[in-house]
């Protein structure tokens, strides 16, 4: 039985992050459905809160899937020197964006999310940076086998 390579370790990390994140954000979706089911007024009466929570849930689930896909199909196309940092950047961004949406709904000023929403573009920039790096790699020549 051979030692796992670096890509295998990173793939395992991506799976852990992706599945755990998917579990968490799917659970948030269940809570939001519960808020509807039990007619929770603090949630239902505030359109902006509803929108931010929905954005958090949707981005969380979607980005968790992106991390999983990245682990399976993104890591192999990147060079060895950039795989780890790209996964870290993508994972951080995919946690930051939905979390910022969700948390910015708490005690928000009228008509705007609270200041934590400013973390959304930061997270989005991280995700975009990771995606740019991965997309560029797919156009480059294949990396040498490990």
């Amino acid at each position, binding site marked *: 039985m051979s030692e796992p390579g670096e890509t295998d370790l990173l793939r395992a990390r991506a799976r852990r992050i992706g599945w755990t994140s998917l579990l968490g954000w799917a659970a948030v979706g269940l809570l939001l459905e519960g808020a509807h089911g039990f007619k929770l007024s603090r949630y239902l009466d505030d*359109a*902006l809160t509803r929108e931010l929570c929905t954005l958090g849930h949707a981005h969380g689930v979607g980005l968790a899937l992106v991390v999983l896909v990245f682990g399976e199909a993104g890591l192999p196309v990147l060079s060895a020197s950039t795989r780890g940092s790209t996964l870290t950047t993508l994972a951080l961004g995919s946690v930051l964006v939905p979390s910022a949406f969700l948390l910015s709904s708490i005690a928000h*000023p*009228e*008509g*705007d999310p609270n*200041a934590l929403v400013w973390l959304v573009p930061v997270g989005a920039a991280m995700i975009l940076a990771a995606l740019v790096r991965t997309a560029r790699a797919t156009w480059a020549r294949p990396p040498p086998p490990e």
Partner: protein
Amino acid sequence: MNRAAVALVSALVLGSAYAVAAGVVSDLDTLRDLHRSAYVGSAACARCHPSHDESFRRTFHRTMTQEATAESVLGAFDGRALRYGGRTARMARADGGRFVVEVSGDDGRALERWTVARLVGSRRHQQLFTREGDVWVRLPIAWDVEEGRFFHLNGAFLTPDPEVPEGGRIAEADYLRHSVRWNDNCIFCHNVAPDPGLDPATGAFDSRVAELGVACEACHGPGADHVRANASPVRRYALHASDDADPTIVNPARLSPERRSEVCGRCHGQRITDDVGRFLAHGDPFVPGDSLADYSRPLARDTPLHGDPEAFAPRFYGDGTARLTAYEYQGLLQSACASEGALSCTDCHGMHEGDPRGQIRPSALGNAMCAGACHGELASDDALLAHAGHVSVACVDCHMPRIVYGIRTLHRSHRIDVPRPLADQAAGRVDACTLCHTDANADWAEAAIAAHYPRRLAPEGTPSTTRGLLGGDPIERSVSAAALGRGTAANDRDARLGLLLAAMQDDPYPAVRGIAWRSLRALAPTAGEIERFTSTDDARERRAQIEGITRALLASHESISSPDGALVAELRARAELRAIEIGE
């Protein structure tokens, strides 16, 4: 290379952030002349202020003026008729769903057919306007929201019954007596940024408003600069994080009490200007935050009109207290609570909270405002009893009595003062004491106050409300008629029934007869066909209705004590029969 690129990007980002932040700080420090800003309408405000928009949309301010649509028309245009003055007005829907009022004579001949185009009011009454070219004209029929029926405006304003000639049809001028033009009357107080657009050369109107009804920008000023500036999220979050005012908009809460009240006083305080032509041609230049005195001054009892110092006197009691609604601002200015205590309208009234009917802040209900703000020593029942001799009455019952006539109802005076029964009587007011002690007069009330409220002294002479109901001018008669119908009225029920029936039958003003009917209905809501009584009906029809009501009362073992005939005759002879124009 990569490090250099990162450093360059970082420098660019930081530099841009600094420039944006510096620009925002400078922008927030720059005062604006809001007269140069444009209006955007409440829909633009709702995008960023959904809670305030929602709380505003509950109010009757929003629906003060509306186009006539199936959603906005409250009246039952189901073919029902209102007969008055030898004419029958029939309210119905026409082709295309239009709302029409058709007036015909007793012979069935069609006299008028109006299409309702615009509406004013939605809480108590909804007035109907038809469009004639460039103007909107008020129709003589309106809808009483609370009563759920149409009424003729001659029964709402304080003018006597018109002369009824042989044949029973009153003159057209009398039927249309209260027809007014929206363009140079209602427009000013019932809309945002009113501009009649009168061309003085041709007399034509090009009337425009920023928004129909009283919406956000009526109190906050024009919002175009505010909307434009706050499209920047950096600016918005800078404001969220600070307590500083945004110079692109007016927040009345940040104005001084005087300026704050002037925002309300613009409409809740009838005004006069030396430059009527400018107002009619270009609109009212007032923007919230301005001094009202820059453009106009509130009407007072002795304000002259064309050199006549008595022109507006009928709208005020002898001591200058307003007798009509839409003079609340004058009342506030006359109150020590404002002149010595900095009270403003919005201390009691909240535009975004409270019951839309009156918009009293929940924190100001009952005695909470007075005892909570300045008169904390009266917060307990014991202290209140020692102060007023009552615990079951509110501060406003004595200090803001219901002596102000609005259309078909009586309102509280907004001159917050101390009851002085004899002085009030001299000013033509029914004092606050005898509005509840309706079996007593001002002499008793004065003595009772002087003796610090011992138990009831034997009343001598005619009670103030009896004197006011039968012998006062139209507003005194209205005030007394309303007082006799309240649960607080102290005199015997049989005497109140007799007085109110007498007023319903013989008062020469339909508006006063209407108030008396409402009071009687409050006392005996199931008396025969009391709901059918119509104050504008002629004397013969009224007599028949009153006989029916009387029979029903007697059948239910009520006793009715009619006022002494000689007293009625003596007081009626003293009653003033002048018309009091509401002053639109």
